């Protein structure tokens, strides 16, 4: 049954980045570490039998796998759109970064799981299938393949996948882990706005939301920060992120409240003070804005990056003062 994959090999363009991943991995991962292969506490069999299936055209496992997780998350999209978005004919494959970007464009939050079988199982239990990148060849002759994990069965030691033209491919867990390891355990989950990963890794989640902000998916970022604060109410990054999304959505008063609350406990956070000044300026409270910006500038003594940003804010404040 191994041959089933052979005729559907599918190369992502990012083989260079992956090669780096792999070379770093060669020495360290001759065996799969237990923290990766552990099914997790109270692991039970789980399979999302209702997950849709999109048998792939040759080389197009990227769009097919992406379509599968997007559809499972309720995103209304179609295969042609996805193929246009993520498939690179010249490389006969899709880049991982394209899959991530397309997930954002479809209004979902692309989250990469911590490299652990237990995280994978937790996502399935939360009802979300997981897209994975496998190398079905060997490290020196890679054959990249995107598939979707829809089931784990700790008792039988098996993983169930939507893969290539097989609706239900059952693989021994050890085999799956070997092929997954060669991609640096790369995975992708499509979360709905406001949802959190089942086992959210704090840093990963914050990076995910900051990337949403950077790419202009502000509403989804805001929902994400709100959810994050439910789990880590004191996280400075999440409070800053939430205030920033209010700012970027034009809710200046909300942004001001968020920045001020942060500054009460941490008055030394220069970038928060800079953003407070920017929010005040938007509300045409020029004098207050200047006071905060000047204070931020004094606090930023010696840190070139923030100084520049604050000086730009100050320049805007001066320009606004002249217009008034």
């Amino acid at each position, binding site marked *: 049954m191994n041959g089933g994959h052979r005729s559907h090999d599918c190369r992502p363009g990012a083989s260079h980045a992956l090669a780096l991943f792999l070379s770093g991995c060669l020495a360290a991962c001759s065996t799969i*570490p237990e923290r990766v292969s552990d099914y997790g506490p109270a692991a039970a069999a789980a399979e999302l039998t209702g997950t849709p299936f999109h048998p792939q055209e040759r080389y197009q496992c990227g769009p097919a796998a992406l379509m599968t997780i997007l559809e499972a998350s309720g995103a209304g999209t179609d295969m042609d759109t996805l193929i246009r978005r993520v498939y690179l004919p010249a490389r006969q494959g899709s880049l991982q970064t394209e899959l991530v970007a397309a997930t954002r464009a479809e209004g979902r939050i692309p989250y990469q799981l911590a490299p652990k079988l237990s995280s994978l199982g937790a996502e399935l239990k939360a009802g979300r299938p997981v897209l994975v990148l496998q190398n079905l060849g060997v490290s020196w002759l890679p054959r990249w393949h995107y598939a979707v994990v829809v089931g784990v069965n700790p008792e039988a030691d098996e993983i169930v996948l939507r893969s290539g033209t097989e609706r239900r491919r059952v693989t021994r867990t050890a085999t799956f882990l070997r092929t997954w390891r060669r991609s640096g355990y790369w995975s992708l989950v499509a979360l709905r706005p406001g949802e959190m990963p089942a086992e959210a890794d704090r*840093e990963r989640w*914050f990076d995910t939301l*900051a990337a949403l902000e*950077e790419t202009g998916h502000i509403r989804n970022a805001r929902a994400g920060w709100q959810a994050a604060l439910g789990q880590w109410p004191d996280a400075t990054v999440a409070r800053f992120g939430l205030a920033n999304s209010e700012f970027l959505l034009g809710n200046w008063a909300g942004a001001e409240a968020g920045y001020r609350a942060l500054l009460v406990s941490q008055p030394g956070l220069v*970038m928060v003070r800079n953003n407070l000044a920017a*929010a005040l300026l938007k509300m045409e409270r020029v004098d207050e804005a200047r006071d905060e910006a000047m204070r931020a500038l004094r606090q930023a003594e010696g840190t070139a*990056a923030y100084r520049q940003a604050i000086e730009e804010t100050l320049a805007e404040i001066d320009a606004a003062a002249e217009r008034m």
Partner: protein
Amino acid sequence: MNNSKTRLFVFRLVAVALLSVGMTQVSTAGMIGTDALIEEQARDGRITRIEQLIDREDVARQLTELGADAEFIKARIGNMTNAELAELDGRIGAQVAGGDAIGVIGTVFLVLLILELVGVTDIFKSL
């Protein structure tokens, strides 16, 4: 002549276009993005981890034996870029993955690795 004038015009047009793109970004910016705070916290975390390692009694002793000054090394670390720090932290992490740093690779090796990576010595050219 005419040709080069046209070229100059096009060049200026492109330059202005590029500049104005940059400027709209700056003026809508004003606000510093969340990623800046994430990066700052990551940096602080890495520095703390590395400093704690240097402060370990056995590591400190080894440093002294090699004639290296811990405070000097810390100052060097403080001046490293985020990318350099990430590499140093990652290198140490890769060596010790799954175990205690000293137990796995030995104090001497660890100290030499730190010295090399902060640029004090030049031992592991091929590492």
